[in-house]
């Protein structure tokens, strides 16, 4: 491209969107670095250095969010990556009702997260909920899904997977459909069965799709807020609090500096975990 022709495409086209993006996203993100080091009332601030961060990590009620967020992101991401691949393999094979099954799996992703959260917390009611009454009918005593401190976070994670696995599946389906049919035919001629074609063709060749799923699901998990808020509000106690729900609680309580520090921590968490992951996955993709 010559310099002349590039100049015909004026950067002025970026201005309308760029201004909105700058003022309402980039600027607050940069400002958060400063405000996270203040005691802040929106009208007035007092610089207190790293005090907010120290508070964040020294109080269990706050630092637990750090661990929970990581666990939540890893669990939801892993389940979506695995289930999505299995579902997509199934849904690209020779089965009846294919388009119905594809649609129904995708459908929950279009529903309101809050509505899904409320409906599932009703169904997970320990004594009356339909999940435990159904389990009781076949002789199993179901746990208190959202009230048991050991499993509450996992219960919410499962609902997250129920709602979000459709996106993973659709991405995988696109990836698998892009694989040339000839490979499968060649493998069949060589005497490979369906396991061999999954293991040696579908799995390695859907890697680009898998990378997209990993990144999307992992970042989504780290930033997750609405589902946990609709289902447990961080309870029982604060055992299911995520960084995002802690930010909201501190904001509600008027600790704006502390809430902003929470934001910066989330920001660092994403940068430290997701950016290297993204690079690593992209690098491997090139080698394939």
């Amino acid at each position: 491209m010559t310099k002349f022709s590039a100049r015909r495409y004026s950067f002025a086209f970026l201005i309308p969107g760029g201004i909105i993006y700058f003022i309402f996203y980039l600027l607050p993100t940069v400002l958060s670095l400063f405000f996270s080091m203040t005691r802040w009332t929106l009208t007035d601030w007092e610089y207190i250095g790293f005090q907010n961060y120290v508070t964040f990590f020294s109080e269990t009620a706050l630092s637990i969010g750090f661990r929970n967020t990581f666990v939540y992101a890893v669990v939801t991401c892993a389940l979506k990556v695995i289930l999505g691949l299995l579902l997509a393999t199934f849904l690209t094979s020779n089965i009846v009702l294919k388009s119905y099954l594809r649609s129904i799996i995708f459908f929950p992703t279009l529903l309101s997260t809050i509505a899904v959260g409320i409906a599932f917390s009703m169904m997970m009611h320990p004594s009356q909920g339909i999940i435990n009454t159904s389990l009781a009918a076949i002789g199993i005593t179901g746990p208190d899904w959202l009230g048991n401190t050991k499993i509450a976070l996992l219960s919410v994670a499962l609902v997250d997977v129920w709602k979000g696995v459709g996106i993973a599946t659709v991405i995988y389906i696109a990836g698998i459909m892009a694989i040339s049919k000839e490979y499968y035919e060649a493998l069949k001629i060589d005497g490979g069965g369906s396991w061999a074609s999954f293991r040696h063709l579908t799995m390695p060749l859907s890697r680009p799709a898998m990378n997209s799923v990993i990144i999307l699901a992992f970042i989504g998990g780290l930033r997750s807020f609405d589902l946990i808020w609709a289902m447990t509000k961080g309870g029982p106690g604060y055992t299911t609090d995520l960084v995002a729900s802690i930010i909201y609680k501190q904001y509600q309580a008027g600790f704006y500096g502390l809430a902003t520090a929470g934001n910066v921590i989330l920001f660092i968490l994403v940068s430290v975990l997701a950016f290297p992951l993204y690079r690593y996955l992209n690098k491997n993709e090139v080698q394939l």
Partner: protein
Amino acid sequence: MINRTRKYAVGAVAFLTTAVLFWVPFYFVIINSLKNKSESSELNMNWPSSFHLIENYREVLTASQNMLIRAFWNSALLTVLSVLILILVSAMAGFVLQRRAGGRGTATINFLILAGLMIPPAIVPTIWVLDALSLFKTLLGITLIEVALHFSFCVILYQSFVATLPREIDESAFIDGSGGLRLFFTIIFPLLKPVTSTIIILESISVFNDFVNPLYFFPGGDNVTVQLTLYNFMSMFTTSWNLLFANILLISIPPLILFLFFNKRIVEGMTSGALKG
């Protein structure tokens, strides 16, 4: 023959699984939205002894001075405005960024845009900025927030689509004497229709279903959006599950309609966008 039997058996099992996993929750919400207060509080799936369709839905729509109706209006306005602005600004940005790809400055801009997909927005500083511009708690304010936060995703979608349009189109338009603006609006923008319609569907659903941003940036009784009605109604309806379920169903109707009509398009858009993004 065995193969065919197996095929149908697998299909039947798959259908039954979806029935348990997807239809049962849906049925649970519908049937309970039709019960009276005490029956719905049992949270079971029994058939109601009497139906309260009109009564329940009327009550949920008129509660708190028609809060839900006001919320529908606010959400509709917010969705339409955000999506319109989003399309206009991100199509322009995506076009120029793709055409200048590799040039000076574009790498930095692309990095800043990619960051928007990953880094969560800083909430209180955003409120501070909104407040300084007198946009806090206004429809325009929340609209601009939605645009800013969905900008990255849409720009990337447009960028990858523009790459499929040959540069010769632009060149012949330049030779015919059109400037950048005319080229874009009369020739390029209409060609972007497939990706524009994908964005209309995906972004309408995502803005309409957004809970977090209205919660922070659009508080106040008159400002309520549909997702917040559930939340605002919760304490009030703790003993009226029937009304809460009716509310859940009502706010699920718009996405449901979009899904029924544009199912295929949504899936296509998802795949093309996510794979390239």
